[in-house]
C-alpha cells in the first residue's frame, strides 16, 4: 500500500494513483475537514484508515467510533459548532446511523458535513446489497455519486460546499467499484483543517421536540428546493456525450456510468449520455429537457430503479411520449448483483436490436468446460486463526447438540465444514439477541458467537437484555484484539485510538461483569482442555454466561513476528503419522493439505499455532528441530 503521507502532498496539479477511498481522504484534506469519524466496514474502510495514519501530521481529529451512529453523533456535534466533518461507513452502517441521520436532517449543521456511504453491489463483503440512494429520498438529504477516484475527491469538496450552503449533511454514495478502484487523481490545494468551532445555543434549531421539529421539517423541505437549483446547475450533472440523431439517450450514474459508456462504444451506438453526479435532488428541468430531446431514453443504474422511478415521474408530467427503458416494467437490466460492461451491453443490445461484436456465449461455453471440475476456493479462516481453535473447542464440547447464532466478522467463515458453527446471522450484534429468542423458543443449548469489535459495536444492549430477562444463553466473545476482517483497525479493547495514541483498554470481561453477568471466564482457545471445561460450566449456568476467548489475530501475530525478525518454524508431520486425516477432517486448516494420500503441512502457510498437535491422535506432528 502507498505511504499514506502521499495524501499530504502539497503540490496542486500533481497526478497520483489513488484508490477511490484514498481520494475521498484527500478530498477531506483539501476541504479542511477537522473531524473524521468512522466505524470500519468494507468497502469504506480505507477512507478513515488513511486519515488515521496521517491525522496527527495533518492536524485534524480522527476517531474509530464504537459504531456508526456514535460516529455520526460525534461528527454532527462538531459540525453543529461550525467544524467541517466527515463520517465514513459501509452501506449497512447507515442503517445503524439512520436514527440520528433522519432527524439531524431537521436540526442541520453549521460546518460542512459529509456522510460517506459505500454500497456493495454483489455482496463482496456484506450481508446484503441495499441501495442507499433511497436514504437520500427518505431523509431529504442531498446525495452525490462519484464514478471514479477523481470524482470521489472532487465531490467530497462539492459535498462540503453544498452542506454549508444548505446547512444540511450531504450523503456521498460510492459503490465497491468506486471505493476500490484505483485511478489517476489530480490534486487541488490543501487547506488547514478547521478543528475548533463555537457552540451557539439555539434550542429551536437544535432540540428536536415536536414543537421545534414541525417547523424544522418545513425548513428542510425549503432547503431541498434550493438543493434542486444547485442540482440543475451542478457541474456534476451534464450531458457528457451528444448523439448525431437525437434518437437515443442514456441516463446513468456512479459505477454504472462507466459500463454504460463502454457498452455503448462496444455496440457502436449513436447515443447521447446524461451523466448524473448529484442524484438527490435530481435536476428535474435538465432531465425534462433531455427527455424531450430524445425518442428513447435508457436508464443504466445498479441495484434499484432509483433514477428510473423518478425519471418516469418527470416524464409522465412533462414528456409523456418518450420511451423509457430500464429495469421496472421490462427488466432489461438486473436489479441484483453488480453490473459489468457485458451486463449493460446485453441490455442495450436487446433494447436497440444491435448485435454484440464478440460471441460472448461461445467464451462462456468454453469457460464452462475448463472450469467445471475446478475446486472452489471460497474465503476461509487463515492458517493459525484463533477462531478456528475457538470454534473447534466449542464443537468438540457440545457436538451437534447446540444452536449457534453467529455474527458479522471473520468467524462467520466458521459456517464452512468441518467446523459448521453458525446457524443464523443477520446483522452486527444480532447474535446475542437472536440467541435469546431461540433459547426461549427451543430450550436448547444456545450460543451467541460474536467478535470483540462487534461486541462493542452492538452487542452490549443485547447482553444487558439477556441479564435482565435472564435468558439462558452462552455468549462467546471471540477476542482477537483487533477489527480483523476490515483491515485491523483499533477498537475500545485494543488500547489504541484513531490518532494512534494510547488509551485505557475497555475489557470485555469487565463490561460483562458490570452488566451483571454471573458467569464470566477468559480463556485461551489454543488451550483446548481448559476451554472445554469453561464451555461445560457455562452451559450448566442457569442464566446468561460470557466466555471471552482471547488470542491475537494470526495475521497480526505473524506480521509482528516478521517485523521483529522472529522466524516462524512451521510444524511437520513425523513418521508416526498414519495419514488418518483427523487433523484435516476436524480443522480444515489451509496449511494442512493432502498430497498423494499423505498429510502435508505447508511451511509457507503454517504459523505454528499448534492446534493440529492438540487434535492429532498419534502425536505425529512436531516442531522443525
Amino acid at each position, binding site marked *: 500500500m*502507498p505511504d499514506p503521507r502521499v495524501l499530504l502532498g502539497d503540490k496542486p496539479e500533481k497526478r497520483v494513483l489513488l484508490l477511490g477511498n484514498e481520494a475521498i481522504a484527500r478530498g477531506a484534506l483539501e476541504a479542511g475537514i477537522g473531524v473524521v469519524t468512522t466505524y470500519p466496514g468494507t468497502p469504506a474502510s480505507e477512507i478513515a484508515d488513511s486519515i488515521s495514519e496521517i491525522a496527527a501530521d495533518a492536524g485534524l481529529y480522527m476517531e474509530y467510533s464504537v459504531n456508526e451512529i456514535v460516529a455520526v453523533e460525534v461528527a454532527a456535534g462538531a459540525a453543529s459548532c461550525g467544524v467541517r466533518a466527515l463520517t465514513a461507513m459501509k452501506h449497512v452502517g447507515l442503517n445503524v446511523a439512520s436514527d440520528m441521520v433522519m432527524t439531524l436532517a431537521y436540526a442541520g449543521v453549521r460546518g460542512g458535513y459529509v456522510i460517506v456511504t459505500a454500497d456493495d453491489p454483489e455482496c463482496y463483503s456484506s450481508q446484503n446489497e441495499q441501495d442507499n440512494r433511497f436514504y437520500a429520498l427518505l431523509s431529504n438529504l442531498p446525495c452525490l455519486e462519484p464514478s*471514479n477516484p477523481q470524482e470521489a475527491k472532487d465531490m467530497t469538496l462539492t459535498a462540503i460546499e453544498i452542506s454549508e450552503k444548505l446547512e444540511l449533511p450531504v450523503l456521498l454514495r460510492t459503490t465497491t467499484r468506486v471505493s476500490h478502484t*484505483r485511478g489517476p487523481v489530480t490534486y487541488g490545494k490543501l487547506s488547514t483543517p478547521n478543528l475548533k468551532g463555537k457552540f451557539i445555543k439555539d434550542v429551536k434549531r437544535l432540540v428536536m421536540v415536536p414543537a421545534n421539529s414541525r417547523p424544522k421539517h418545513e425548513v428542510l423541505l425549503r432547503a431541498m428546493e434550493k438543493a434542486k437549483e444547485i442540482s440543475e446547475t451542478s457541474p456534476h450533472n451534464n450531458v457528457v456525450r451528444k448523439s448525431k440523431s437525437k434518437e437515443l439517450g442514456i441516463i446513468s450514474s456512479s459505477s454504472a456510468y462507466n459500463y454504460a459508456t463502454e457498452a455503448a462504444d462496444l455496440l457502436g451506438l449513436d447515443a447521447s449520455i446524461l451523466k448524473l453526479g448529484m442524484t438527490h435532488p435530481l435536476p428535474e428541468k435538465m432531465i425534462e429537457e433531455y427527455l424531450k430531446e430524445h425518442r428513447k431514453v435508457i436508464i443504466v443504474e445498479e441495484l434499484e430503479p432509483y433514477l428510473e422511478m423518478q425519471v418516469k415521474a418527470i416524464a409522465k408530467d412533462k414528456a409523456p411520449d418518450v420511451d423509457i427503458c430500464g429495469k421496472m416494467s421490462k427488466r432489461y437490466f438486473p436489479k441484483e448483483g453488480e453490473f459489468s*460492461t457485458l451486463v449493460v451491453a446485453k441490455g442495450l443490445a436487446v433494447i436497440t436490436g444491435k448485435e454484440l461484436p464478440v460471441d460472448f456465449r461461445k467464451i462462456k461455453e468454453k469457460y464452462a468446460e475448463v472450469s467445471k471440475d475446478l475446486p472452489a476456493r471460497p474465503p476461509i*479462516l487463515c492458517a493459525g486463526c484463533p477462531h478456528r481453535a475457538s470454534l473447534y473447542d466449542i464443537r468438540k464440547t457440545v457436538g451437534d447438540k447446540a444452536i449457534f447464532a453467529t455474527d458479522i466478522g471473520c468467524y462467520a467463515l466458521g459456517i464452512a465444514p468441518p467446523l459448521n458453527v453458525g446457524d443464523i446471522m443477520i446483522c452486527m450484534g444480532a447474535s446475542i439477541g437472536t440467541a435469546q429468542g431461540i433459547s426461549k423458543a427451543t430450550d436448547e443449548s444456545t450460543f451467541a458467537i460474536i467478535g470483540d469489535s462487534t461486541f462493542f459495536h452492538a452487542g452490549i444492549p443485547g447482553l444487558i437484555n439477556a441479564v435482565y430477562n435472564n435468558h439462558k444463553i452462552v455468549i462467546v466473545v471471540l477476542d482477537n484484539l483487533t477489527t480483523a476482517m476490515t483491515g485491523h483497525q483499533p477498537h475500545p479493547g485494543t488500547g489504541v485510538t484513531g490518532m494512534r495514541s494510547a488509551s485505557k483498554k475497555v475489557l470485555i470481561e469487565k463490561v460483562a461483569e458490570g452488566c451483571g453477568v454471573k458467569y464470566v471466564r477468559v480463556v485461551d482457545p489454543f488451550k483446548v482442555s481448559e476451554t472445554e471445561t469453561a464451555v461445560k460450566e457455562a452451559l450448566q449456568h442457569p442464566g446468561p454466561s460470557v466466555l471471552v476467548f482471547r488470542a491475537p489475530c494470526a495475521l497480526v501475530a505473524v506480521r509482528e513476528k516478521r517485523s521483529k525478525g522472529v522466524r516462524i518454524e512451521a510444524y511437520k508431520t513425523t513418521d508416526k503419522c498414519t495419514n488418518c486425516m483427523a487433523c484435516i477432517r476436524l480443522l480444515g486448516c489451509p496449511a494442512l*493439505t493432502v498430497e498423494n494420500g499423505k498429510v502435508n503441512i505447508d511451511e509457507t502457510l503454517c504459523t505454528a499455532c499448534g492446534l493440529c498437535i492438540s487434535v492429532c491422535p498419534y502425536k505425529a506432528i512436531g516442531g522443525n528441530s
Partner: protein
Amino acid sequence: MKTDEFNIVLSGVGGQGTLLAAEILGTAAVKEGLNVRVSEIHGMAQRGGAVVSTVRIGENVQAPTILEGQADVLIGFEPIETVRSLRFASEKTVVLMSDERISPSELAAKEMSYPDMEGIVEKIHRFTGKIIIVETEKLAREAGSTLSQNIVLLGALAATEKVPIKNESLIQAVEALVPSKHVNMNVKAFELGYEYVKKMKVHV
C-alpha cells in the same frame, strides 16, 4: 475490438500480493502519464479465497473491470486460479503463470491431491498457446524471500515487452510501494523474473 487499451488480469489467492502487483502496474502507468483503472477486492473475499485484480490502461478506459475474452495478459499467481480466470483469455492473451501451487481447502476436505500440471496447461491451451510458466518460488527464494513472488511475476511481465510501460517506471513503482527495508530484495526479484523469461527466448 478496440486496440487502444491494454488489459491485464491478475488472478491468485488472497495473501499472494496480487493487490500490490496491480497497484505497482497502475502507479507505473500514472508515472508515464497514462490513464489507468485498477480494480481490487478487499475484505472478506481476501481471506485465502480466490482474488482477481484487473489493470486497464488506455485513454478511454473508464470501467475498472475487464470484459470476457479481452485480457492482453493474464498473470496467474497460482495454477488453479489461472484456469479460473480463463474467461478473460482468448488467442491474443499471453498467460504468465506461476508454478506455485496452493491447495484449495476443498481438495484437502475430499482428501484429494492437487490436479496435475499437464491438465492445467492443456486447459490454458484451449484458449491460447502463449503460455509462460515461471518458477516464482525458486526465484523469489533466490531474491531473498518467497513473499516476493508477485514482484518476480512483474519482472517476467516486463520481459514479454507486451505492457506499454517502461521497465524503469515499473522498478520505480516497486521501490515506491514495497516496505523500504525490502526494496533491494524486491528489485532483485523483479530482475530475476525478467532474466528468467528473457533466457527462455519465447516469442509471445
